[in-house]
C-alpha cells in the first residue's frame, strides 16, 4: 500500500534518514520501532509531506507522492496523528473535529456532521465533552481526539506517531484497543512506537529503525521481545546480541545500508 524506497532526509547537515526502505501492507498494522533519535518522527513527517526528502521515493497505492504538499497527501488518503497529540487546545472538541474535515470545507455541513456523529459513536467520551476545550482534556482523551480528528479526513492509511507517549498504562491499553478496532474496521495502520511490548502485541509486521536506517523487518516473534526492546530503546546494532535471532532466520531480511 505504502512503499518507501531509499528515503533520505536531513536537517541542515545532520542526516536523520539515510536511505530508508519500508513497505506497509494494506489492511494490517505495521509498526516502526527504534530508539530516540533514530528518525522515526522524521520518517512520519516526510511521508506526510511536512518535510521534503533529499532522495528516494514514496508511493501510495501505486502512485508517487514524493514531495507532495501535506494537503495533497491527506487528500490521497493518508492521515497523521502527530507526536504529542497536538490537539487545538483553545478550541472545543467539536471544533477540533470540524478542523479535521478541512478537505470537505466546500461540501455540505450535514455530511461533516454525519462523520462527527460516526466518530462520536466510536468515542462516546468525546461526545460527552463535545463543548469542552481540548486543552482541558486528560492525556488519553486528547489522544482519542487526535485520532478522531485524523479519522475525519476518512483516511485509508492512518499513521500514528507514539500514541502511548506519556499515558498511564491502563490508558495505553485503551488506546491500543482502539487501534486494533480501527484496523478491524478496515483502516490500515502505520504505527511508530517506543512501547515495544504493546506494539508487538498488535503488529502484523514490524520494522526496526536505527540511526536513520531500517535494520530489521519481520513479524513479531521472529526476534525475541528481549532483543526488540533492547534495540528499540538502546539502538544496539544487529551484530551483537543475537542469541534469539536464529529462530527467525529464514524470513529475516536485514536490509543493506544506504
Amino acid at each position, binding site marked *: 500500500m505504502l512503499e518507501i524506497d531509499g528515503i533520505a532526509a536531513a536537517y541542515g547537515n545532520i542526516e536523520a534518514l539515510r536511505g530508508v526502505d519500508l513497505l506497509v501492507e494494506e489492511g494490517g498494522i505495521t509498526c516502526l520501532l527504534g530508539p530516540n533519535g533514530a528518525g522515526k518522527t522524521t520518517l512520519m513527517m516526510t511521508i506526510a509531506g*511536512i518535510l521534503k526528502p533529499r532522495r528516494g521515493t514514496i508511493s501510495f497505492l501505486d502512485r508517487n507522492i514524493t514531495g507532495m504538499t501535506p494537503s495533497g497527501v491527506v487528500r490521497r488518503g493518508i492521515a497523521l496523528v502527530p507526536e504529542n497529540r497536538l490537539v487545538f487546545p483553545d478550541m472545543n472538541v467539536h471544533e477540533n473535529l470540524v478542523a479535521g474535515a478541512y478537505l470537505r470545507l466546500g461540501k455540505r455541513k450535514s455530511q461533516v456532521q454525519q462523520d462527527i456523529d460516526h466518530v462520536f459513536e466510536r468515542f462516546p467520551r468525546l461526545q460527552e465533552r463535545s463543548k469542552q476545550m481540548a486543552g482541558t482534556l486528560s492525556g488519553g482523551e486528547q489522544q482519542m481526539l487526535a485520532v478522531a480528528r485524523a479519522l475525519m479526513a476518512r483516511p485509508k492509511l492512518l499513521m500514528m506517531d507514539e500514541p502511548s507517549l506519556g499515558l498511564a498504562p491502563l490508558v495505553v491499553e485503551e488506546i491500543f484497543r482502539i487501534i486494533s478496532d480501527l484496523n478491524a474496521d478496515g483502516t490500515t495502520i502505520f504505527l511508530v512506537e517506543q512501547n515495544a511490548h504493546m506494539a508487538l502485541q498488535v503488529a502484523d509486521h514490524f520494522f526496526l529503525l536505527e540511526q536513520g536506517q531500517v535494520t530489521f523487518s519481520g513479524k513479531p516473534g521472529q526476534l525475541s521481545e528481549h532483543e526488540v526492546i533492547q534495540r528499540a530503546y538502546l539502538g544496539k546494532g544487529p551484530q551483537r546480541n543475537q542469541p534469539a535471532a536464529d529462530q527467525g532466520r529464514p524470513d529475516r531480511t536485514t536490509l543493506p545500508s544506504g
Partner: protein
Amino acid sequence: MDFFFGLLQIIGVHTLLGLSAYVVLQTGQVTLAQAGFFSIGAYVSAMLTVLAGWHIIPALLVSATLAGIVAGIVGFPALRIKGLMLVVATIAFGEFIRLFWFNFDYQIEKKGIVVGPQGGEGFKQIRFFPENGWSTLDVAIFIWVIVALVMLALWWTDRSRAGTVLRAVGEDELAAQSVGINLTAVKVGAFAAGGFIAGIGGAIYAHYTTHIEHLNFGVMLATFAIAYPILGGLRNVFGTLVAVIFIQGFLVEGLRFMGDWRNLLFGALIVLAMNIQPRGLIDERSVKLVRGLFTRDTRN
C-alpha cells in the same frame, strides 16, 4: 453634535483597521503592515474619486481589492517566517509602502486646480463628501453601515467551518498540516482578507479627513491596528470594537481634560486592562455573562 459624529467616524475607521489585523492574528501571524494596506486604500480611492471622478462606493471597492491583492502578495514571503521575524518583515513592508507614497508624485489639472498626490506634501483636496453635500451625520451613517457589514461577515466566518480552520492554523501549524489544512491558502487568504478590510478603512479615512500624507500611515498606526484585537481579545469581533471604543472614545477623547498627562495614563490603563483581562476585554467569561443575561431575558 459634529464632535460626536466625528468621533463616531474615527471609531468606525479604527474598528476596520483593528478588524483587518484581527483576521491575520487569528492565524497566529503578527502583522505590522496593516497601516501600509490602509494607506493603499486611502491613496488609491482618493485618486479614483478626485482624479477620475468616480463615486466613492466603486472607488472604495476597487482600492480595497487592490490593497487585498498587495496584502496577499506580502502573505507569500510571510509564509516562510514566523514570530519576531515576521513582525520585523511586516514593519519593513509597511514602511516600504509609506515611503512609496512619500515619493509618489502625480497631479493633473481639474477645473483649473492642480490636484493629486504630491510626494511628501501629501494629497490635499479629497472633497468627495463636501462636494456631494454629505453631512457629518451622513458620513457617520455610511461608515457604520460598512463597519456593520464587515463585522457581520467576520462574525459569520468565525462561527463557520472556515473560521474554525483559521483558528486551527493559529493554534498549531503542525497539527493543522497533519489534518491536511493548506497553510499557504489559509495564511495568504487571511492576509488578503485583512488587506481588503484595511483598504476599506483607509478609503473612508482619506475621504473624511480630506487630506492625507505619508506620515499618517507610520508604525504607530500599525501598532494601533494590532493593539485593538489583542486588547479586545481574539474570541470574537466585538472585542476589537470594544477595544477601539475604549482607546479612541475613552482614553484619547474622554481623558482630553487631563492635557498632556493623558498620554501617560493611556499606556498605564492599557497595561492595567491587559492584566485584569489577560485574554482580552471580551473573553470567555464576559461572553458567558452576556449570554446568561439574554437567556434569563427570554425565559421571563
